[in-house]
């Protein structure tokens, strides 16, 4: 992670996009979030997008947390509330915040539900979490090409991209972590690159390549990289000669429980038949 600090600004387009999106979502929610925390502050992308956006008036103060002191050190401006913290061991008192934001960072955690539970505890009742994580279709072209190249060139292929969450799992994870009204939605972004190696360079700059290089421990050989590039180009090349890289961004929103929130009724507790409400005769479905 530390190694990524020097080259981050060149490759933070996804983070900037996610930050803009979250600021926009906040502006559409008609309430104030006096105390907010950004758990993946990096060099302050969300802070910048937030204060530029219509949502700026809804937030009084933003605590910026990141695991990397080098990244935080790049954030400019006095009076910022910065702290080095681990999303898996948050240093925040219970019920501290009205809003928690985490952008493209929670997929790094070993225990996603555990991290979500800690975030929920740090939120005040009825506090909001908005988190963006990479979804399962992220880098699908790269993963397929790498797997094939490794199988051909070396004696075995191993997974080299972090396991990403599934959009359907995501809302369930929030629920398991005790969030109310969990919602997840998916945004797919296709980025075009001149060459697969430029994609690899970009991933390295984003810090995502360490997830690529982590297992197996030995680095990718030149031969595997070269073969991967060929396969990638053969299988996925676009009409303009460039290659696509899919990024799937899953946005999770959930609220810390509060008595005022609507709750689902118990099954069987209905006081009226659906058929009556619709004004149609009731038809029993054949069991199959």
């Amino acid at each position: 992670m530390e190694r990524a600090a020097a080259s981050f600004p060149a490759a933070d387009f996804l983070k900037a996009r996610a930050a803009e999106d979250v600021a926009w979502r906040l502006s559409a929610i008609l309430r104030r979030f006096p105390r907010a925390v950004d758990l993946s502050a990096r060099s302050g992308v969300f802070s910048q997008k937030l204060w530029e956006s219509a949502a700026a008036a809804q937030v009084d103060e933003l605590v910026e947390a990141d695991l990397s002191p080098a990244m935080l050190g790049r954030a400019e401006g006095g009076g910022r509330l910065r702290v080095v913290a681990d999303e898996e061991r948050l240093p925040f008192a219970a019920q501290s915040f009205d809003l928690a934001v985490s952008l493209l960072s929670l997929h790094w955690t070993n225990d996603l539900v555990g991290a979500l539970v800690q975030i929920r505890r740090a939120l005040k009742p009825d506090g909001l979490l908005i988190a963006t994580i990479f979804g399962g279709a992220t880098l699908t072209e790269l993963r397929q090409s790498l797997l094939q190249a490794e199988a051909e060139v070396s004696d075995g292929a191993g997974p080299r991209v972090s396991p990403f969450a599934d959009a359907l799992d995501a809302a369930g994870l929030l629920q398991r972590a005790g969030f109310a009204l969990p919602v997840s939605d998916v945004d797919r972004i296709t980025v075009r690159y001149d060459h697969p190696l430029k994609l690899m360079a970009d991933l390295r700059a984003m810090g995502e390549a360490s997830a690529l290089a982590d297992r197996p421990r030995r680095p990718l050989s030149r031969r595997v990289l070269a073969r991967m590039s060929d396969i990638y180009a053969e299988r996925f090349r676009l009409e303009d000669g460039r290659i696509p890289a899919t990024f799937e961004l899953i946005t999770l929103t959930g609220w810390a429980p509060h008595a005022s929130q609507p709750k689902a009724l118990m099954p069987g507790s209905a006081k009226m038949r659906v058929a009556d409400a619709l004004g149609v005769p009731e038809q029993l479905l054949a069991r199959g």
Partner: protein
Amino acid sequence: MSPSPLKATEVDPRLLEVLVCPATHTPLEYDREAKELISRAAGLAYPIRDGVPVMLPEEARTLTD
């Protein structure tokens, strides 16, 4: 947010208000001189570097007394 009049090496009281020890979730003591946030419960002193508290147990100093 308006720029704070605090010195760059001081921790903003608004931040101190919400911080607890990440290992024990207990309150911290602010040692201005030593630039540390002390968790008696965990026996750890978290360093403050350039005004930024580093709330990682592996970066903390173990208290000897």
